[in-house]
Structure formats: C-alpha cells, structure tokens
C-alpha cells in the first residue's frame, strides 16, 4: 500500500454527490504520493454496499469516470458491512496476481438519503427476506440477540460493553475525520436510549456519508512512489450462514495459541461467536506467520458496529480466549496507553484496538468503512498520524504491524488483513 485518503465522515453530505466524495478521498491519497501520476494507475475496484442508498445502479462506473480512470479496468465488490474489507483484498489480488502494478480501491456510502428508520430497513434487507426480515427486520435486534447469548455463555457484562464505547469515542476526540468526537462515561452509555436490549444508542455505530481510498502497488512500483510503503503480509476471508438460526453448534476452530482443552463445554459458534471472523483471522495469521497474535501484532482496527461485536471479535482474533473478551476490555488491554479515559485501567495498552475511534465514533459509511480502517492503519504504520490528524495523540510508539478487520451481517462475511512496515 502506497497511499490512502478519506473524506470527512458526516451525518449528511448534501453538498457533494458520491462521485465528489470519492474524488476528495482520491485527491487526498494522491496528494501524499506526488510521484504517482494517474497514468501509472492500471485500474480500480469499487466498494459500496447498497443500491437502495445510492438510488443509482452502476454507481461504481460513475465514480470511476469522475476520477478519470476510464477506460482502465474497474469492477464493483459487495459484501454487506465487509464490502470495504473485501474491496481492499480485491485490490490486493489485482496486484498480487500480476494483473496490475498499481490499483486503486475506492469506497463510499450515501446513507443520509433516507431517514434513519428507512436506512435500517435497507440494511435489514441484507438478512433473509423470507425468514428473518419479516420477523425482526432490524440488525441491532439481531446483534442484541447474539450478545445476550454471549452474556449467557460467558458472563459478559453491560459495563464491559460500555467500556468499548468509552474507549472508541475517547480515541475519536483526536481524529478530525470522525463523525462523533466526545468524551463519555460508562454511565452515559447505560443511560442512553435503549435501542434493542441490551444495546443502547451509544453501543451502536451511526449511519454516515463518506468515502475512502487506498492505493496498492507491487513492491517495485511502491518504492518508486514512496519511501515508506506498507506491506500486506496476510489476507483472510471467512463466511458463515446468513440465518443465525442455521449456525452450527460444534467445536471451536482452534488458533495456534489455543488447545482443545480450553473449550471442553463450549458449542461453537452458535450465535455467540463469529466463525467467519475466526476463519479469516487464522488464514491471515498463517500467511503472515503469526502464531501469538496478542504479542506479534501492535494494534488492531476492527469492525465495532456494536460494542458487543468488538468484544466478540477480540475472541475471534484470538487476542484472548473465547469468553474472555469482557475481561480483556475491563483490564484495559485494548485502550491506548497515553489517552486519559477517566477510568482506572490495570493493563492499559497491551494491544490498542480502534485507535482511530472505530465505526462507533468515526461513523459507518458502509462501502468506505473497511477502506477507512486500512487508511488509518496505514498512517499508524507510516508514523504519519500527527501530520494527518493535526495532533499526535493517537500515534502509537510501536506500530510496525497492524491488523484490519471488516465484518458483514451477523458475521456472514469477515475479512482480516495484516499490514506491516514495508521499508
């Protein structure tokens, strides 16, 4: 990866069409690699989730032509909430296969075009419309059911979930691109309006308008364009059955740092865990040669559409054992070491998770989200957070290897990619 750019994420961007938002992110990325002229770009991949939100079919080509990337190759990638992560990997595939020397991944979503309840309906259409949508028709309800089972299996607490929100909102205070930048407390989260028990308004990410761009190149091209490219050393993609009701109850897929005796009485994944997340992580770890993720990865940008799914994802990524996610946040491990969150934390900063503020605070313009995570991770590894955010509070001292994680519909598609210092 040689460069990245994002637009400012906002509740609504009536001042710009989706093409213009993508152009902002694209120019942002090009601005960081002045040696890259557009004639060196071999093609692009488009990422956006919902034709309903866009109210425009073939929006991908319209963004491609606005960027001036015709007649080069382009295609659209779509996979719900993981669309951005899948697009990032599709761009990687274009370069890794040798088809392109330089490929642009761009993503966007225009969620402000309908009211929030209509947006929730569009999102819920990404659940089985014969068996699931007519009953619940609400993704927050689906995730609430998942975490209630997690609570039942493992004793996860609502306060532990709230700590995720405190952390991510707190981090976003120093990220100028984030949609929500405010300091909150555990009590604020629990006192917020109940959406789907036990998830409150502050346990859930917000709809957003925004765009993000990543530029990937092969090694030779990368070093011609920048002195500090980031190497993509592992990619993994997992899937699971659309209906939560159909998920099997079998054995845990073991990570290298786990053994069967860790999980004697646990049926897996049930509805409490994301098998696709575990599967994606293990593929990426194998490819990158990671056997002890907690120690071998410096930071994580993961898909925290819900505070609960961040906790569930710590476990899928084997940062802790299944069932240990609540305690993992309570002890402070995923907090940033230098930020004051207004609470006492015993083991702060073991592995910062969502230093950018994550989806909960940055916003979740679906097609842009997975690419936004890649851009923030890229800047962390380059050590350019200070320059990009206007202040260095979120820059980690050690950020040589990061993990990005993108996730769709109750864990149906999950991608994990490993990014490392490439120079």
């Amino acid at each position, binding site marked *: 990866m040689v460069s990245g750019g994002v637009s400012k994420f906002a509740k609504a961007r009536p001042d710009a069409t989706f093409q213009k938002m993508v152009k902002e992110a694209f120019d942002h990325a090009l601005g960081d690699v002045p040696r890259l002229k557009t004639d060196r770009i071999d093609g692009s991949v488009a990422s956006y989730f919902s034709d309903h939100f866009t109210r425009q079919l073939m929006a991908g080509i319209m963004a491609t032509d606005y960027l001036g990337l015709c007649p080069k190759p382009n295609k659209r990638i779509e996979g719900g909430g993981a669309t951005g992560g899948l697009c990032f990997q599709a761009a990687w595939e274009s370069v890794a296969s040798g088809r392109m020397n330089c490929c642009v991944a761009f993503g966007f979503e225009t969620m402000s075009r309908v009211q929030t309840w209509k947006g929730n309906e569009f999102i819920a259409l990404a659940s089985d419309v014969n068996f699931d949508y007519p009953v*619940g*028709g609400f993704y927050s309800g689906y995730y609430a059911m998942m975490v209630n089972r997690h609570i039942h299996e493992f004793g996860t607490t609502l306060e532990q979930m709230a700590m995720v929100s405190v952390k991510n909102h707190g981090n976003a205070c120093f990220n100028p691109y984030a949609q929500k930048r405010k300091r909150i407390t555990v009590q604020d989260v629990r006192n917020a309006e109940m959406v*789907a028990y036990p998830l409150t308004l502050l346990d859930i990410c917000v709809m957003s308008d925004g765009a993000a761009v990543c530029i990937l190149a092969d090694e030779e091209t990368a070093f011609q364009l920048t002195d500090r490219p980031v190497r993509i050393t592992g990619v993994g993609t997992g899937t699971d059955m659309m*209906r939560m009701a159909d998920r099997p109850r079998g054995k845990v897929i073991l990570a290298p740092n786990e053994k069967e005796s860790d999980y004697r009485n646990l049926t897996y994944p049930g509805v409490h865990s994301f098998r696709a997340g575990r599967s994606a992580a293990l593929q990426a770890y194998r490819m990158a040669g990671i056997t002890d993720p907690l120690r071998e990865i410096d930071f994580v940008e993961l898909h925290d559409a819900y505070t609960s799914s961040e906790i569930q994802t710590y476990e899928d990524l084997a940062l802790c054992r299944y069932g240990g996610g609540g305690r993992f946040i309570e002890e402070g491990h995923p907090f940033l070491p230098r930020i004051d969150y207004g609470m006492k934390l015993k083991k702060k900063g073991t592995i910062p998770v969502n230093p950018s503020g994550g989806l909960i605070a940055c916003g979740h313009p679906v097609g842009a989200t997975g690419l936004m995570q890649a851009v923030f991770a890229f800047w962390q590894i380059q050590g350019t957070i200070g320059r990009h955010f206007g202040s260095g509070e979120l820059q980690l001292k050690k950020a040589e290897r990061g993990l990005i994680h993108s996730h769709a519909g109750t864990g149906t598609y999950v991608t994990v990619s490993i990014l490392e210092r490439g120079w």
Partner: protein
Amino acid sequence: MSKKRARLTKPTAQHRDPGLEEVMTGTTVFNVPFPADLSTLKGMSPLVIRFPYSVEYLHSYGQDSPFFAGLANRKLLGTRCGPCQYTYATPRLHCPACGRETDWTELPQQGRVHTFTTCYYGSEEFLKETPFHLILVEFDGVDTLLLARLIGVSGPEEIRIEMKVKAKFRRNSQLKTTDVYFVPA
C-alpha cells in the same frame, strides 16, 4: 381517416413554440435566486429534492413454500437430512453438509428460548410495532433454531434464556413467517 389526418396536421400552439406543459406535482419551485456573477456559484447551498419510490414484487417462496402452507394449517414444518441425521428448524431443502435433498418433517410446537431481545426501535416497516420481542427458539431433537416474535411479556426482564415457549398461529394466514409466534408455555 381524413378527419384524423386533418387533426394531426393542424398547427398547434406546441408546433409554433415547443415547450413542456407546466405541472404542479413533485418539487415545484417558483423563484430560485441566482447570482449575476457565476464565480459565486460554488458557494451556493445544495439543492435537495424528494424522490418517492415504491415497488410491488411477485415474490415466490419457491421450494420453501410448504413451510408457509404448513403455518396456514397450524403446522410447524422443518426439514431433515436422513443420512446426516440433522434436523433444520428453519427449513432448507438441501443439506449444506452433504448436499442431498432433505425431507419435510413436523416440528414440536413447544420449545425453549435460545436467546432474545426487545426492540424499542426498528426499521420503518416495523416502527409502529415497537417495542416487540424477538427470540431464537430451540426445540428438543432439532439441530437448528427458528427466529420468531414472543408475545405476552412486557419487557426483557420477563424473558429468560431457556424459558419454555409454545407456538401459536394467526387464524388468518398472511403467508408470512410471522404467521407463527410464540408465547410463554
């Protein structure tokens, strides 16, 4: 014939000065301020129009149709893969484990709450029904679950994982999965 031709060739107002008929539907604007100096246009506020959109689908349940016919007859149907000895509470006509076709089988009408939530907010279509309770139901001897509404409780504090529930059916079928719902047993 000659009359018609005469009408077609008769010069109309449109022929003399072509233009669309003025309408007063949708977004109708009478005076839009506009600057004399075009260089100030980039600072103008964006224009937002309303765009209603509705579709009627002819949606087939295909091979899953017997499930819905069953609900209309107060029967809860799942499917079973004989070779895998695996029963699906939410029907699938093919077993994802072995790829073979499954067989229809009747499910028990009593089960337990596997997990639950109460939705206080929702999609536009269901907003008027909030708060409503969702449960995944598990049945003895059945390997997968069924998503359904739970009726007859007032809030999440009255729902417990593993509590017993029984199926009830709408008297007038709507051929939707909500034709079956559950109440505390």
